């Protein structure tokens, strides 16, 4: 017996986990009986599938189902298993390892497979009962001892592990919140678009997701009481019976370091999985190879093969990591990502968004090769993409159609549509089948999308099937089909402005990413042309609800000032109807002196412009102006600019009405409103028209009988005089008609279309039908305008002054001088 064992080499394995046991299996395959094998495991269980802890937590699997190597297996293979005893010491001179309970084993070859430790945030209260990590069976047991329907769980970390914990606890009936530091979930596996879809899906399952949120402390009674709540840095307090921290892992290199092996973040190994001591190998999550650590099993399986070859001396392969793919194991949420899915220098994207099915796919190409993949909502083709990625072959002609997956990668979408059964549903909202649409086209001689919508209702609601309906028109009419020539908004989309606005309303799209997903944008986040337009459309569609996106504003609107050719800004405070006072003028004069503003000018809009203000001074300038009661003039905005007035009947010998007072009232009612383009009003006190009202967007001219209302004028390169909208009697009428007109313009004109080209496009008659002939529409528009103004009339500068960020955007973040 003694002779036998001394004849065989002794292999000791530290760590009874996935990496260690896989290596042992590989060794047994190559050279059964070559080693006396001893395994130390700190955990009391035999080797189990750690990946399956998520289904174990969710209740989809039992512990027995996730065991990989049963006790019987160790016995059958003559392996001495010491469970529940962590190795405490390695002596490289006597070649012995010692366990915490005193077991000593000699080795000829030592294999370290100690895995990693969950990272624990060093925050106040972290040692309270109920605050835990997610790594082992013991952790799951502890969670389940607390989890119960109605109780609250807070997960710190919205990565793969955190979300799987959240899902499991959600299934156990807990009310779950996820606190994530970054602005999007799973940022290491998903790009922003896919993360947005994921967030929506989890939200729909009742989880509360707090993104860009930082944890402050874990609170409870006394110093050591069970956790009761989690406080966030912004002051929010979340109830918590259970806190799971899933903020990352650290390679467990403690033992290796203590016995003098080379370590950095992990145990350093070469291409053969050897550490700095040739008799000691290391593998799994505890290692660091070429500056890289690992947290997924696929590369670990490769390591196990390499290590086994070298340990048994049967071959001399080297470990060269290949891209690994990640999937989220949350039932009902399909997600896959692999490789350089974020894209980088010199990559290109192919993006497919199938809004109806909630699918997002992004393929990242470098030159002619696939280097990254993100699939959300449909991962059927993930395996195929992953193979293409790993093989790294030139894509050639596959490139054009590969986004549709292997099935259609060679055919074209029209063929697929033609092959659809007659009973296939095309329009989900209205339950319209393919045959219904094709029959209607044939029977009634329909030729356009609009025709089909009126006749069958197909694509008339959310509109996400518009592409399919168009495809059917094309199939039915062949060469006769001439698609409506709606000009796309920009190169990021195939849709025109009107279609986008229709969809925002009908499909209740409420954020820019939601529009881009639903309408299948071709770029990841739009461009400088579509983003400001979408931001505006959302503002108009969802007043009081939509939160303005500063990063989608053109510079002037973001800085609330006009950028000048030298990068300085001009500042134009409002002067209601062109009126001012000594106090206002004094405040302006003081500001000009205090900030050495180089130029002051009276504008063509009846107010004062301070030019050449430095970006860093903007806030302070406005603090002083605000203090004197002045507010922003929006001289920079696609917004209401000025209401010019003349002196009118108060002073002027010809004046028949008080044009100044009406102008001031109009400006007070309409300032702050955002529009497709700039909007200017003017009020003249008699037909001599000194306020130039007939070249304004909305011009008002007093007559003996009341007021003439004019619309659609502008100066500029192509001067256009207004057309007469109608005549009204009272100031109240003027107010109602003006606001109703502005609202119609806001709701229907395309971004960057001034009132003049808009009216030329839709016709004056169309506008009159709504504003003049139909009192019901007019009053509704008026009410909508007033409602929207409730949220719009805040001075941006007063807001900046109270902003917690202390105007950071106006200053450099750092000075390196």
């Amino acid at each position, binding site marked *: 017996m003694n002779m036998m064992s001394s004849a065989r080499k002794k292999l000791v394995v530290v760590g009874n986990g996935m990496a260690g046991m896989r290596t042992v299996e590989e060794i047994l395959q190559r050279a059964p009986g070559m080693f006396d094998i001893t395994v130390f495991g700190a955990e009391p269980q035999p080797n189990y599938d750690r990946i399956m802890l998520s289904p174990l937590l969710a209740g989809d699997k039992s512990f027995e189902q996730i065991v990989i190597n049963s006790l019987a297996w160790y016995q059958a293979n003559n392996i001495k298993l010491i469970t529940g005893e962590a190795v405490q010491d390695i002596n490289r001179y006597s070649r012995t390892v010692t366990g915490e309970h005193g077991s000593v084993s000699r080795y000829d070859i030592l294999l370290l497979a100690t895995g990693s430790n969950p990272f624990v945030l060093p925050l106040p209260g972290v040692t309270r009962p109920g605050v835990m990590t997610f790594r082992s069976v013991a952790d799951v047991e502890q969670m389940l001892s607390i989890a119960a329907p109605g109780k609250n769980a807070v997960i710190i970390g919205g990565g793969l592990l955190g979300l799987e914990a959240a899902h499991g606890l959600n299934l156990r009936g807990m009310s779950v919140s996820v606190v994530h*530091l*970054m602005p999007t979930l799973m940022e290491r596996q998903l790009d922003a678009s896919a993360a947005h879809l994921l967030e929506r899906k989890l939200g729909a399952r009742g989880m509360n997701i707090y993104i860009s949120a930082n944890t402050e402390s874990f609170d409870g009674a006394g110093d050591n009481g069970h956790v009761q709540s989690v406080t966030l840095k912004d002051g929010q307090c979340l109830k918590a019976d259970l806190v799971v921290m899933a903020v990352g892992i650290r390679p467990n290199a403690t033992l290796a370091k203590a016995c003098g092996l080379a370590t950095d973040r992990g145990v350093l190994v070469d291409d053969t999985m050897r550490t700095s001591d040739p008799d000691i190998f290391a593998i799994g999550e505890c290692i660091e190879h070429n500056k890289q650590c690992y947290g997924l099993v696929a590369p670990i399986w490769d390591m196990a093969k390499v290590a086994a070859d070298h340990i048994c001396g049967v071959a001399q392969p080297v470990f060269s990591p290949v891209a690994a793919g990640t999937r989220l194991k949350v039932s009902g949420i399909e997600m896959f990502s692999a490789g350089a899915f*974020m894209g980088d220098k010199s990559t290109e994207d192919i993006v497919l968004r199938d809004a109806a099915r909630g699918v997002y796919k992004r393929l990242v190409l470098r030159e002619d090769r696939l280097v990254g993949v993100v699939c959300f909502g449909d991962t059927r083709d993930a395996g195929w993409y992953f193979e293409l990625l790993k093989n790294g072959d030139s894509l050639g002609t596959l490139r054009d159609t590969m986004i549709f997956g292997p099935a259609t990668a060679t055919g074209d979408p029209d063929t697929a549509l033609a092959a659809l059964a007659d009973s296939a549903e095309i329009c989900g909202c209205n339950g319209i089948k393919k045959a219904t649409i094709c029959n209607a086209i044939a029977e009634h001689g329909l030729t356009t999308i609009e025709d089909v919508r009126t006749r069958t209702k197909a694509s008339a609601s959310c509109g996400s099937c518009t592409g399919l309906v168009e495809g059917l028109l094309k199939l039915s009419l062949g060469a006769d089909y001439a698609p409506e020539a709606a000009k796309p908004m920009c190169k990021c989309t195939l849709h025109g402005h009107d279609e986008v606005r229709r969809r925002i309303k009908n499909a209740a799209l409420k954020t820019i990413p939601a529009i881009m997903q639903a309408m299948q944008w071709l770029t990841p986040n739009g461009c400088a042309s579509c*983003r*400001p337009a979408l931001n505006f459309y959302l503002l108009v569609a969802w007043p009081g609800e939509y939160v303005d996106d500063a990063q989608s504003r*053109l*510079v002037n609107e973001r800085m609330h000032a006009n950028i000048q*050719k030298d990068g300085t800004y001009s500042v134009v405070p409002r002067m209601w109807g062109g009126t001012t006072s000594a106090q206002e003028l004094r405040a302006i004069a003081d500001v000009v002196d205090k900030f050495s503003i180089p130029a002051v000018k009276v504008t063509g809009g009846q107010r004062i412009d301070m030019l050449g203000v430095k970006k860093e001074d903007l806030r302070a300038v406005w603090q002083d102006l605000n203090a004197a009661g002045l507010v922003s003039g929006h001289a920079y905005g696609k917004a209401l600019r000025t209401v010019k007035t003349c002196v009118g009947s108060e002073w002027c010998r010809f004046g028949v009405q008080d044009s100044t007072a009406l102008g001031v009232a109009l400006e007070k009612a309409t300032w702050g409103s955002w529009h497709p383009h700039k909007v200017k009003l003017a009020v003249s006190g008699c037909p001599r028209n000194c306020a130039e009202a007939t070249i304004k967007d909305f011009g008002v001219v007093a007559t003996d009988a009341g007021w003439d209302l004019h619309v659609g004028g502008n100066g500029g390169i192509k001067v256009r005089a207004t057309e007469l909208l109608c005549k009204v009697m009272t100031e109240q009428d003027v107010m109602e008609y003006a606001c109703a007109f502005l609202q119609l313009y806001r709701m229907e004109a395309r971004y960057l279309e001034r009132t003049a080209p808009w009216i030329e496009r839709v016709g004056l008659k169309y506008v009159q039908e709504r504003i003049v002939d139909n009192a019901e529409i007019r009053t509704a528009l008026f009410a909508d305008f007033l409602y929207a103004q409730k949220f719009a009339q805040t001075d941006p500068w007063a807001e900046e002054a109270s902003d917690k960020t202390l105007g950071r955007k106006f200053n450099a973040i*750092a000075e390196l001088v």
Partner: protein
Amino acid sequence: MDGMRVVENFDDIGALEDIPRLGARTVTTTLGDVAVFRTADDTLYALRDQCPHKAGPLSQGIVHGDSVTCPLHGWVISLQTGHAMGLDKGCTPRFTVKVENGRILLASGVIA
């Protein structure tokens, strides 16, 4: 091929959250302002804050994909290379920038 690559001396210029996604902030340096951009994917890029066209402040433009549109006359500049895209010709110097533990580190050397 990058000609010379001087990547010594990283300066901590702030936290990642100091820059909004799809936005930019500037850093004052002896060589003039440097604009640090953050894309939707949290990739950071740093360019001299001057458009190759007429020196417009690129930090004030709209960021989309890996490009920025200059606020003055709408040139589109690649954040990766500093080159003007499309038919426009010109280039803005780049700097190396990276994130470690949530902090933004900017290298003082220009990538030529």
